C-alpha cells in the first residue's frame, strides 16, 4: 500500500518537475527566438511561439548602433599626471561594434577580479590560519563583521573615493572593491585550517623560505578552495550590475549588462533589438557555465559548506 502511494507521488512529482523546468527555460527561449523575430512578430498581440522567418535585422541593428575601439591600452598611472585626469592611451584597437567592446570589458573585468581575488585571498587566508602573530584575532573579527554587512551600502562613498583616486569610470573601479570583499579570505582560511602544522614545520626545518613553503606546500592543499572561490568571484563579478551602473559612464567603458540596460532605456519598445542584446550578453556565459557545470556546482557547494 505504502509503496503504491509513493509510486503515484513519484510520477506526479516527475511531471511537475518537468513542467517547472520548462517554465524556467522559457525566458531564455523567449530571448533567443525573440532576437530573430521580425518587428511585426515581436509586436503582435498574439504571441508568435516560433519565428516564421528568421531575421538577423535585430543583430545588425545591435552591431551598427554604436562603435568603440576594440581596446585602449593606456600608460599605467598616467591619469595622475595629465591635466584632465584621463589616462594617456598609447595603443587603440580597430573600431568595432560597441557590444563587442562591452563583452571584452566584461570578460577582462571578471577574469582580473577573479585572479586578483584568488591570489590575495589565498595568501591572506593561509596567513590567518597558519601564522601566529599579534593582531591576527582583530583582523579576523573585522573580516567577519564586514562580511555580514550589505555590500551595496559602501557604493555611494566609494564613488567619491574613486573620483579622488582618479579611478572613477574605469574598469579598475569595479574590480578593486570585489577584490577587497573579505568573503574569499574567510573561505580560504577555513580550507587552510586543514593543512597539518607538522608538514609546514618540517618544510621550515628543511630550510624552505616562507614564500616557497606557501607556493609548494600550502597552495596545492588549498587548491579546491581556491577553485571554488574563483568560480564564485567570476559569477558575482559578471553579475554585479549595481557597481557597474554607478562606476562606469562612457560608452567605451561599459560592461555588456550595462550596455544592454542603457540600450533598453533608450529604445524601450524595440523588443527585438533588446532581445538580441540580451542574447548576446547571456549566451557566452551560459556556454561557459554548461561546459564547466561540474566545477560550478562543486564551487557553489564547497563555498557554502566551508563558509
Amino acid at each position, binding site marked *: 500500500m505504502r509503496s503504491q502511494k509513493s509510486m503515484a507521488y513519484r510520477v506526479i512529482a516527475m511531471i511537475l518537475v518537468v513542467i517547472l523546468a520548462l517554465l524556467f527555460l522559457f525566458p531564455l527561449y523567449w530571448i533567443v527566438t525573440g532576437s530573430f523575430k521580425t518587428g511585426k512578430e515581436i509586436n503582435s498581440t498574439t504571441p508568435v511561439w516560433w519565428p516564421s522567418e528568421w531575421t538577423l535585422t535585430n543583430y545588425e541593428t545591435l552591431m551598427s548602433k554604436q562603435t568603440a575601439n576594440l581596446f585602449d591600452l593606456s600608460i599605467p598611472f598616467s591619469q595622475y599626471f595629465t591635466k584632465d585626469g584621463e589616462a594617456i592611451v598609447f595603443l587603440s584597437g580597430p573600431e568595432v561594434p560597441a557590444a563587442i567592446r562591452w563583452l571584452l570589458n566584461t570578460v577582462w573585468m571578471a577574469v582580473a577580479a577573479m585572479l586578483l581575488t584568488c591570489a590575495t585571498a589565498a595568501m591572506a587566508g593561509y596567513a590567518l590560519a597558519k601564522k601566529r602573530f599579534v593582531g591576527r584575532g582583530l583582523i579576523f573579527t573585522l573580516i567577519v563583521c*564586514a562580511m555580514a554587512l550589505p555590500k551595496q551600502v559602501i557604493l555611494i562613498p566609494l564613488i567619491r573615493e574613486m573620483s579622488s583616486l582618479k579611478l572613477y569610470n574605469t574598469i579598475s573601479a569595479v574590480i578593486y572593491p570585489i577584490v577587497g*570583499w573579505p568573503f574569499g579570505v574567510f573561505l580560504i582560511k577555513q580550507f587552510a585550517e586543514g593543512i597539518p602544522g607538522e608538514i609546514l614545520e618540517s618544510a621550515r626545518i628543511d630550510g624552505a623560505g616562507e614564500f616557497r613553503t606557501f607556493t609548494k606546500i600550502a597552495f596545492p592543499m588549498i587548491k579546491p578552495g581556491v577553485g571554488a572561490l574563483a568560480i564564485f568571484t567570476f559569477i558575482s563579478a559578471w553579475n554585479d*550590475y549595481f557597481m557597474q551602473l554607478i562606476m562606469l559612464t562612457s560608452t567605451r567603458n561599459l560592461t555588456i549588462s550595462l550596455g544592454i540596460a542603457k540600450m533598453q532605456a533608450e529604445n524601450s519598445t524595440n523588443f527585438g533589438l533588446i532581445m538580441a542584446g540580451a542574447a548576446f550578453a547571456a549566451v557566452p556565459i551560459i556556454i561557459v557555465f554548461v561546459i564547466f557545470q561540474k566545477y560550478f556546482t562543486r564551487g557553489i557547494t564547497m563555498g557554502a559548506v566551508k563558509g
Partner: protein
Amino acid sequence: MPKRSRMSRALVRRETTAGYLFLLPSLFFFITFVLVPMFICIYTSFFDSNMGKDTQDVFIGFNNYKELLGDEIFLGALKNTLIIVVVSVPTVCIFSLWVASAIYDMKPALTSIYRVIFYLPVVTGSVAVTVVWKWMFNNYYGIFNYLSQGVGLTNQNINWLGDARYALWCIILILFTTSVGQPIVLYVSALGNVDQTLVEAAEVDGATNTQVFWKIKWPQIMPTTLYILVITTINSFQCFALIQLLTSGGPNHSTDTIMYYIYYTAFKLYRYGYGNAMGVVLMILIAILSAVQFRLGKSKS
C-alpha cells in the same frame, strides 16, 4: 602556553613578518575599498552632503535619521523590502527543498540537467533576465496579458508593471526565479550526503517516507537550510537591478525598496548624506536579522 614558550624570539619575529607580508595585498584592498568607504558611509550620514565641488558638508547630527522616521517614501520602501523578504525567503526555501528532493536521486546525468536548468536564470544575469520579463509583462505585446485573457482571468489588458496592485508581485516572481538556483544546488548535494545507513535502518523499522524525511534527513540538512535562509534574506534585502530596470520604483514609489531608494536619493536627488543614513539603517537591520537567524539555527541544532 607550552607551545608559545617553545618558540624562540627569532621565530616569533619571522612568523609575524611573514604573516603580515602574506596579509598585506589582501588587507590593502580590504581597507581601502571596503573599510574606508564603510566608515565614510557612517560619517557622512551625520552631514548634509551633496558632494558638490563648491559646497561644504554641514554637520547636522542625527537630523538625517530623524527625517527618515517621518519620510513616508522611506517607510514605504522599508515595508516593500520586508514584504519581499517575508514572501520570498520561505517560498524559495520550500520550493528549492521540494525540487531538490524530487531530483537528487535520479540518474546523475538527469540530476545535472535539472540542476543546470534551475540555475540558468542566475547565470543569464539580472539584466538579460529582467528585459525579457519586461517584455512578457508589457501591456500590449506581453504574453502575460495574452495568457490571462486566454484562460479568462481578465478581459482587458493589465498594465502589470505600471499598476501599484501588481507591480511588486511581478518583481517578487522574477526575483524568485533568480533566487532558487543556488539553494537547489546546495540541497541536492546536502540530500546526497545524508547518511544512508540511518535511512535504511529506519526503513527496516517500518518508518514512512514522511517520517524518514522529518526525523532523519531534515536534521542532517539543517546547516544547509540555515545557510540558505541567510543568503536568501540578504539577497532579497539587496534587490536592486530588477527594480531599477523594471519599474524605477514606480508607479509613484510603490515598488521602491530600501536599496533602490538609496540609489534614488543619492543619484537622482544628490542627497548623499541622507542616502548614507539609509545605508546605515539597512546595515543595522541586516546585522540584526543575521544574528537572529544564527541564534535560531544554533539553538535548534
